[in-house]
């Protein structure tokens, strides 16, 4: 098992390097960050050049990449522009835990992500719990009564859910449960942010503010997932060992819960494991609509300012999560399915 994990890591690490190179090339194409600093853009040409030198933007792209990767604190840099290097660099590189500083706020990238990550996680984990439980329940129920009215209804609805633009669903939910409920004098839900500033940061407020974004995220995912659960349960139910279990008189719900569900859940585990890291990212639109102060909004806000250390940080973090979750999924899979031996 541990050799397997090591081997997978050995494949994952080069992959992360490829990803980081692709991303870095994209960032190079991004344009001049100094020009997009807004009001803080220096007006004098000499000041602009000095700022570029300080940020290391005057270096060739491969030097910038290496600086980002392993740092430059052993090299003398030419900061005053007289042609002779005189100051040691201060970057330690991502491999030594220095994710760089934001060009906009000058704060360490890791700190900025750290501020937003818990907000995204709290939204995502809640949404994921809702998604997994509901799609298992709906998928199982549909599979036990295939082509019934409920099943056909769910099939139709899941197509609608799958085809729905996230923002359209979010706006509809907001319009019904926030705007119109308020108009009709019913208890209504808040639409923006995590807390009401007048009430303060209480757990009750947080839950109230989470209902709409979680519902939005859940409906979109449940649509696809419940179909997936349905088809894998249906497939398992047609197997011989299910017929054997039924024939020897095992009660119906026992057959489903003990024999069918664990086997049907196997492909579902893979699907979820591979999708979870993308949930970190997938909520860009949802976070924007509900003004949720998470990573997605951090990304959007800093795209507009060409703040590429922050963008690189977020994208690399998600890529690391993707690679790690792929390994975790495979390992969990081998525990749940005794037929699989990892070696």
């Amino acid at each position, binding site marked *: 098992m541990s050799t397997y994990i090591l081997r997978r890591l050995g494949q994952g690490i080069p992959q992360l390097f490829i990803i980081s190179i692709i991303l870095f090339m994209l960032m190079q194409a991004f344009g001049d960050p100094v020009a997009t600093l807004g009001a803080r853009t220096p007006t004098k040409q000499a000041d602009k050049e000095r700022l570029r030198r300080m940020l290391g933007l005057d270096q060739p792209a491969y030097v910038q990449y290496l600086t980002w990767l392993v740092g430059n604190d052993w090299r003398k840099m030419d900061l005053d522009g007289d042609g002779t290097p005189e100051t040691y660099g201060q970057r330690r590189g991502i491999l030594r835990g220095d994710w760089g500083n934001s060009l906009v706020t000058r704060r360490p990238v890791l700190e900025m992500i750290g501020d937003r990550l818990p907000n995204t996680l709290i939204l995502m984990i809640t949404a994921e719990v809702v998604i997994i439980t509901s799609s298992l329940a709906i998928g199982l129920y549909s599979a036990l009564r295939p082509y019934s009215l409920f099943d056909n209804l769910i099939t139709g609805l899941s197509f609608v859910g799958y085809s729905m633009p996230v923002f359209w669903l979010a706006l509809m939910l907001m319009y019904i449960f926030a705007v119109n409920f308020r108009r009709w004098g019913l208890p209504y839900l808040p639409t923006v942010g995590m807390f009401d500033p007048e009430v303060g940061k209480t757990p009750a407020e947080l839950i109230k503010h989470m209902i709409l974004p979680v519902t939005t995220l859940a409906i979109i995912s449940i649509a696809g997932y419940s179909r997936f659960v349905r088809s894998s349960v249906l497939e398992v139910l047609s197997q011989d060992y299910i017929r054997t279990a039924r024939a020897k008189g095992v009660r119906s719900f026992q057959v489903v819960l003990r024999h069918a569900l664990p086997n049907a859940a196997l492909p579902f585990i893979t699907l979820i494991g591979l999708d979870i890291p993308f949930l970190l990212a997938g909520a*860009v639109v949802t976070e924007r609509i509900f003004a949720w102060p998470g990573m997605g909004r951090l990304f959007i806000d800093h795209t507009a300012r060409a703040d590429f250390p922050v963008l690189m940080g977020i994208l690399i973090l998600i890529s690391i999560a993707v690679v790690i979750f792929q390994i975790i999924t495979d390992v969990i899979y081998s525990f749940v399915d005794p037929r699989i031996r990892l070696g």
Partner: protein
Amino acid sequence: MADTVSTTLSKETIIKPPSSAPLSPLRLGVRRFRRHRMAMIGLGLLLLLILYISFGGFVSRGYCSPIKQNVSGEAWANCNDTSLKLNPPSASHIFGTDVIGRDIFARTIYGGQISVLIGISAAVVEVILGAVIGSLAAYYGGWVDSVLMRFTEAMLNIPSLFLLIIGAHFFSGGLPTFNFFGRELTGSVIVIILIIGVTSWMYLARIVRANVLSLRERDYISAARALGASDGRIIFLHLLPNTIAPLIVSATLGVANAILAEAYVSFLGLGVQGATATWGNMLDGAYQYLDTAPWLWFFPGTMILLTVLGINFVGDGLRDALDPYSTRHL
């Protein structure tokens, strides 16, 4: 030969008299597709939408007061009468007006043309990239395969919406307008098409690679090679046509995904710029009018939903119809 075909198609032979000729794969696919109820509903929906965006322009016309004349067609869609801004749906503007007083009904028609154009073109880009990369990797194998597939995996591990946002931001602005079938389009239309295509080919490349890997060992490929066919001829005339089924399905669903992607990017304010309407950029900023002017986002959003729904229904039907091992919906 007829016997082997009819045994695999037992249900078909029950319906058809055994004396008739065996169905060609194409006829069989068409037959399967037509029996797929969801796909036929989706096709009907798409036909209605195509009628709407093609001929809707003939009924949308009106008096444009800023230029003091009656206008029709796209001029009406772009006529901004600020005295009419944010009017709710009424007899003269059945979908209401937007923040600068343009008719939303006319804009959903002309925006729909652009959205569909973006969707189809982006799917074409996606299919070309996916088919070429997938087949090159599988056909040549070795280091070509390793390099292309590592690249594909790396692209897959980056969330595509993030790539879209970065690409759309980087290339936004600075492009000349161009003329397309008598319509002035901003260069950002091309940018969005390319970006969506470039960020969505990865799954297709893997499907094509898997198919070509199994096909290239077949005898007819050896025969073609023995006859002296070039690599290009083998790939494009012998291998790719035999993976046409996944290509068609991916292209269909790709149109839906591209329309959604355009909507997301535009919703974030990074999409097609300028006067050119798309369903996506009609939604840009509309959420600020969530409670005061819901018609701003309701109508273009519903158009996107119906189009994507229709395409997904059709794509699902095609998948079932074109899969030779499919026994569903027969």
